[in-house]
Structure formats: structure tokens, C-alpha cells
């Protein structure tokens, strides 16, 4: 089981605090919107990840526990 951080692109308004708090997983694109590294978040970063989620001014971030990778989890949700 692994921890992933995700952004709701509708709620996101490019405040950019997430990239400051969790640069290990989040960088900003040229328009200021978050680029999230899909890699799982290790236990050592979990506390910081939770803080990052709480810090988002528009509550656009979410932590998700992924039980196991399957093709159905990835990408199919947005069709």
C-alpha cells in the first residue's frame, strides 16, 4: 500500500505553496500550476505531505492510499 498526493485541477488556483512545502514531489509548470511526481510518498515524508495538503489555500490537494497499481486506477477516471 502506498501514499500518493493528488491535485484537483478545478480547485487549484496556482497559489504554489505545495511546491514550496513538498518540492520532493511537486514542482510548478511555467503557469504556476503543480506538476506532481507520481512516485509513492515514503513514511519519512508523510507528515510533510499531510501538512502540505492542509496548507493549500483552496484545499485542492488530497492524499490517497493506493492498494495496488492496476490499469483501471490510472487515467481511466477522466474520460
Amino acid at each position: 500500500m502506498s501514499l500518493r498526493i493528488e491535485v484537483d485541477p478545478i480547485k487549484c488556483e496556482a497559489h504554489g505553496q505545495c511546491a514550496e512545502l513538498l518540492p520532493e514531489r511537486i514542482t510548478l509548470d511555467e503557469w504556476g500550476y503543480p506538476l506532481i511526481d507520481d512516485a509513492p510518498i515514503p513514511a519519512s515524508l508523510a507528515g510533510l505531505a499531510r501538512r502540505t495538503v492542509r496548507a493549500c489555500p483552496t484545499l485542492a490537494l488530497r492524499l490517497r492510499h493506493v492498494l495496488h497499481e492496476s490499469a483501471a486506477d490510472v487515467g481511466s477516471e477522466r474520460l
Partner: protein
Amino acid sequence: MSLPRVLLGAGAGTMDHATHRRVHGELPPAARRSRNGRPVPLLAELSHAGLRGRGGGAFPLAAKLEAVQRANGRPVVVINGTEGEPMSVKDRMLLEALPHLVLDGAYCLADALGAQDIVIALDQSMGEGHAAVRRAVRERPEAGRRTGQPRIISVPTGYVTGHETAIVNFVNRGIARPMTQPPRISDRGIGRRPTLMSNAETLAHVALIARHGAEWFRTLGPPDEPGSALVTLSGGVRAPGVYEIEYGSRFDALVRAAGGLSEPVRAFLFGGYAGTWIDAAGAAPVKLARGGLSPLGASLGAGVIVALPRSACPVAEVTRVAGWMSDQSASQCGPCVNGLASIADTLADLAEGRGGRDAFTDILRWSDLVIGRGACAHPDGAAAFVTSALRVFSTEFDDHALNGPCDACARRPVLITPRQRSVVA
């Protein structure tokens, strides 16, 4: 049985209910089909049939049905007849000419799911289609019921307003803009209830499977993509229109059915404005199925194929569509709004010969940057359309980058970009 299936008996005007029952036969009671003498519920039959959605997503219908059954609450069935793709008319045609096939499918699924509420989502610009659907609903035996009458809603015109989450959003809050998933509408949709939304054509196939069974459905098409599908073929063919194809059939057979090419063709657009281009050279033997198209980076999408004549300017067409797709963004997600606008502006510069040295690399970079970063797949589609165009039409794009507009730039457009902007709220 062979083709036509959905288009069986289709003629001018709307097929009334009596004719419909004569042409296709009666619906089995409670939508049960007997296999070897044992009644088999419709849902199991649909699973066996392997029917996938015909609205562009190609999602297995059985999986959607299972998801709705698993969810809590009384389900709602929605007919998605909105058809936002400008070069597609098959759903419009179905609802105007063969509404009972679509309604059969919806009523069957509602019965099988235990749903009482049916919503028919039509594009607000459909005009005559609204009246045809209303008349068809009144003709049905279910019209006598006190409850469970279908509700027809008029969705604002737009490319993304017909997304399943946008329709749910429109019904719930009056805003025809896509929503973030999760939650999926199969869990929480209209009125926060599990919602089964299906493309109009998909429901037409459901109506036929309910009558003839899964085995019959699978007699056409390859095992991994069974059945038939409607395709809107337009552009440089003699008889543009809606055709029913067997999955896996050759593309040139379809072109022949449409009277052949009316003029030399440069390339074919497969899948609409979120689809991809294929050079005309070597397109003839392509098999119209996932197996034949995905090696070429293409798919049928919502069954849209456009033949771009050599007399048209691909740069002008692609640039105009890219600008339109940028305007059609629901403007909710930063990467989509910014990315598609940047791509469209730079393409416009290129077409005018004003593009900078980095224009092509910029466009490719932005196209990559928007993938997967919107709430819906709109930016992904627009990006795929543009990148495949840059690849297939590299000669023409290089030429315009150096020399500016060509003579063909000003000709009448092949790819339609309707002027009406979606009124979402």
C-alpha cells in the same frame, strides 16, 4: 445477420413505434433473453456481448452497469444525446430518425437496474430532434404509466458540455461544466444518486442485444471488438453521411460505400477534434478497429472520419480547430486554459509566417504539459490532434512557417467550428 443492424429500415423522417416494432420485432418481456431455454438477465447478456460505449470513451458497458448496481441509492438512467463533436451527426440522426431504438435501450436498462428515472439529455441546438423524441416518448406503451416518465433536458451547446460529469453538473446545479472525478457518476451523479449514462448509439445496440442476444451481436467484428458501429464520414467523399460499419472492416470499403472520394485527399482525421490524423497514402487497407488503428496512433473516437482534400490547407484547418478547442475549454483548470491558448496562439503565428524559431518545440512541449492535468480529457484530445497534425503535415507547416499563408488558406473550411459558445450557467 449482417449489416445494417442499427440502421435497419432507416429512411426519411422518423420511424414511428408501430413500424419500429415491425422492423425489429417485439422487445422480450422484462428484457430477458432466453439462451438454451433458460432465461438470462439482460445485464449478463450485455456482459457476454462485450458492448463498449459508442460516445468516444469505449468504456465497457457491463462495467458501468456493475458499478451502478454496487452503489447505494436508486439509480438514474441518462441518454446522452448531446454529441458535442461538430463533425459527428450520428447521435442526432438516431434521435431524429430512430428514437425508439434508443428509448428501447434506455427502458431496458432502467428495468434491469431497477431505475425509475430516465433523463434524455439533448443538445439545445437540436431543434427538430427535441420534437421527434418527445413524440416518440408519447407513442410508447410506458407513456401510460403515472411514474417514471422520461425527463428531456436541453444542454447548452459545447464541446465539453456533453461530458457525463458536465451533464450531471447541469442537472444538479445548472452549470454545464465537467467535474472532478472521483466521485464517479456511477457512485454519485444526478441528485447524488448512482447514474448510468450512456451514449444514444450505445443504447441502440442494447435494444438489439435485448432482442437477438449476445451471440448474435458477436457474429460481426473481431472477438476483442465485437459488433457494428455508426460512423460519420465527411469531407472529400461523394456521399458524406452516417454509415454503419462492422468493426475490423477495411477503410476503403467504407469510402466505396460513400461513393468514393470526390477529389484527391491529403489525409484523414480519425476520431474528431480530439482524434488524430493519418496520411492518405496507405490509409486504404486500414482495418477499422482498435487492432488496425492504434498502431497508427488513431482510434474511431465517437465514430468520426473526415477526409481532408488536397485543395484545403491543413495548416489553416488545424489552426482554426485548435483555436476553437481552446475557446471550448470550460476554463476551470489552469493547464488546459493556459496550455491550449498558448498552443493556439503559436499555431496562428506559424500559419501567418510569424512563428519564432522555437514555435514547434514550444507547441510540442505544451502539448505534453497538458496531458492528464485537467479535470476532463479535453486538453489531452486537443494536444493529440495538434501533435499528430504537426507530424503528418510537417511539410505544409514548415512551408507556412517560412512563407506565411498559402492560397488555400482562405478557402471554405472543411472542419466546422460552430460559432455558438456554450452558455454554461
